[in-house]
């Protein structure tokens, strides 16, 4: 029986190896170059065995992994070693002293990070933290609101350009008056958030009755329009040339060298992430958050219960946009240079990927997803030109093996203590057992 299965498996792998050798033949074995209009083809036969062997081995491993993954999914939760571990971790965290000391350690790690690892790591961490804020914000829209937004980069741009334009137009006045233009950062931060939120509300107002992918494509359109406007109104925004020499945030009048400046911005970013998490959690656990949850489950029922969908969606959009605006200011401060290239559709997609790969709707997910998506390619740098290929493969592996994300949403459920716990048998009407 076992032997038979193995035999079948090997045969399948052989077929798959043959299939991939065929499939990839023109692209991997043949190589085209064109000289004076004629395509010349060179054969790289030496690659063929490699492809076949790799396909054979990978397909074998792939099916095993899928099987394992399925078995894992079927198992009652709390059975697997990982599940047991998380369960134990969770129960440990419920104890106050343990929770406190874990937080303290975490805090310490976050605090010494820039000193321990140097400027490059601080810098990429800032970029990653900017994306964490973005992902947390988009998570409000996609995760809580269930609205697919593919134009999120537009709000990011609104934020960055708020700071950029403030610098461009008010900066000289500051300099002339002898005030450090780094002050503008602190002015830009709230302004950008509010502006982006207003943008979010205005742009979404006419389109909120669209559903699903139609909403997605409209937001994509808005995102691209915003970028185009930035690119084409060169007189105001600098167009494709962008805005440069944007000041770093004010720091008690000191002009920090890059390394210290990075450290400083890193702390600002950490603080903003903390603020975002705090606000998002508060909203999630509120009347508004519950209404969003219900809206995602069933819009018609939700409306019939008196929930104003349009208002809810509007709030969702502007809240999401608000954080994108904040993140934009940080980006401008970090790179000191902005141009429309930082706000393409790809940016929106990357943030969306962070949200989904982390676990749609989950705060740790948004954080983890964004860190992963922004840090991974940085750590893949040694792979050189294979970097993006590996990155794509990694993404697919994650999503196939953890389709609900790395840190799936574990929604806080409102419960009534004093009621029988979920596991206990609840006396249902007339001796029928409650369904579980």
């Amino acid at each position, binding site marked *: 029986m076992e032997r038979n299965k193995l035999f079948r498996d090997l045969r399948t792998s052989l077929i798959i190896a043959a299939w991939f050798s065929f499939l990839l033949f023109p692209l991997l074995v043949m190589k085209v170059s064109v000289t004076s209009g004629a395509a010349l083809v060179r054969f790289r036969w030496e690659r063929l065995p490699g492809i076949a062997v790799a396909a054979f081995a990978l397909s074998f491993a792939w099916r095993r992994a899928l099987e394992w993954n399925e078995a894992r999914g079927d198992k009652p939760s709390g059975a697997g070693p990982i599940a047991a571990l998380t369960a134990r971790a969770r129960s440990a965290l419920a104890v106050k002293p343990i929770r406190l000391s874990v937080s303290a350690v975490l805090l310490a790690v976050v605090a010494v990070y820039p000193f321990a690892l140097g400027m490059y790591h601080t810098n990429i961490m800032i970029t990653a933290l900017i994306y964490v804020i973005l992902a947390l914000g988009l998570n409000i829209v996609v995760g809580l609101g269930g609205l697919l937004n593919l134009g999120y980069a537009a709000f990011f741009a609104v934020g960055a350009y708020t700071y950029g334009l403030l610098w461009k137009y008010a900066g000289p006045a500051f300099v002339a008056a002898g005030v450090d233009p780094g002050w503008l950062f602190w002015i830009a931060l709230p302004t950008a958030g509010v502006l982006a939120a207003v943008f979010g509300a205005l742009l979404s107002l006419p389109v909120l009755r669209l559903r699903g992918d139609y909403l997605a494509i409209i937001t994509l359109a808005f995102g691209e329009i915003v970028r185009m406007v930035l690119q084409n109104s060169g007189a105001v925004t600098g167009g494709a040339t962008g805005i440069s020499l944007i000041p770093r945030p004010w720091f008690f009048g000191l002009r920090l060298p890059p390394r210290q400046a990075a450290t400083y911005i890193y702390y600002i970013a950490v603080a903003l992430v903390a603020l975002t998490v705090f*606000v998002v959690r*508060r*909203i999630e656990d*509120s*009347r*508004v*958050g*519950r*209404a969003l*949850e*219900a809206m995602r*489950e*069933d819009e*018609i*029922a*939700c*409306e*019939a*219960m*008196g*929930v*104003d*969908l349009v208002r809810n969606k509007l*709030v969702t959009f502007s*809240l999401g946009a608000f954080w994108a605006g904040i993140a934009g200011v940080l980006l401008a401060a970090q790179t000191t240079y902005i141009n429309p290239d930082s706000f393409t559709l790809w940016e929106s997609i990357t943030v969306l990927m962070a949200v989904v790969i982390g676990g749609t709707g989950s705060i740790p997910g948004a954080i983890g997803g964004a860190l992963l998506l922004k840090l991974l390619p940085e750590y893949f740098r040694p792979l050189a030109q294979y970097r993006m290929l590996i990155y794509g493969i990694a993404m697919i592996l994650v999503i196939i093996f953890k389709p609900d994300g790395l840190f799936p949403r574990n929604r806080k*459920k*409102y*419960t*009534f203590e004093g*009621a*029988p*716990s*979920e596991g206990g048998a*609840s*006396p*249902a*009407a*007339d001796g*029928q057992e*409650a*369904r*579980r």
Partner: protein
Amino acid sequence: MSATDPILEIDRLSMIFGGLRAIDDVSLHIREGEICALIGPNGAGKTTIFNCITGVYRPTEGRVTIRRGSGQREAIQGLKPNVINRKGLARTFQNIRLFGNMTVLENVMIGRHNALAAGVLRAIARDAATRDEEERLIDDCRRILVKMRLDPFINETARNLPYGAQRRLEIARALATDPFLLLLDEPVAGMNPHETKELEETINLIRDEEKVTILLIEHDMSLVMNVSERIYVLDYGRLIAEGTPDEIKGNPEVIKAYLGE
């Protein structure tokens, strides 16, 4: 105004889908404290009438008006469902539409959405008033659940509830919006005779204790005849009869079109 002035009045309502006249010039009214039933063959237009009342559809013609307490009579046709709900009309759905992944308690909490005031800013600030509000909310919800005999399931995920309990939860959720008029669409479909009997009592209870007027659609004649004071019969979108259960039972047209035997 007299106490018998109807709290809901439907005046010459018509609803046309494409070329199909699903409701054809229907007028009916409900008085405060009544339990009325709307019956009729499949596709007669019963659910469509509910949809017109609750704002899911905008009626092609006609008026729907309500009067709450001693207030003014106001027209509600064409308003949005959430607005109509806020005016005190709540409904259940023929095909159960619970928030399946939320707990029983949470489903009812959504029902109380408009009884609370906290907006985004207050949610973030979470001031004392907001905290109070939230605490009161859970108590209120529990009270409703106890009334609907759902308290044993209070922390269960709605989707995993027995069918009968799901139907009751729909009612509980609707009740949580503090309606003065409750519209029930086939509340006992899919229930066994035993459960039907229980729901009958519950419906009476809601009317008597919560002072909620009820209009229900049902194909289960045992329930209809037992609970309702007045019955409207619809066929092909037209009203073909109106009366007490006994009158309806004996009405030959109704027997022919709907009841059989």
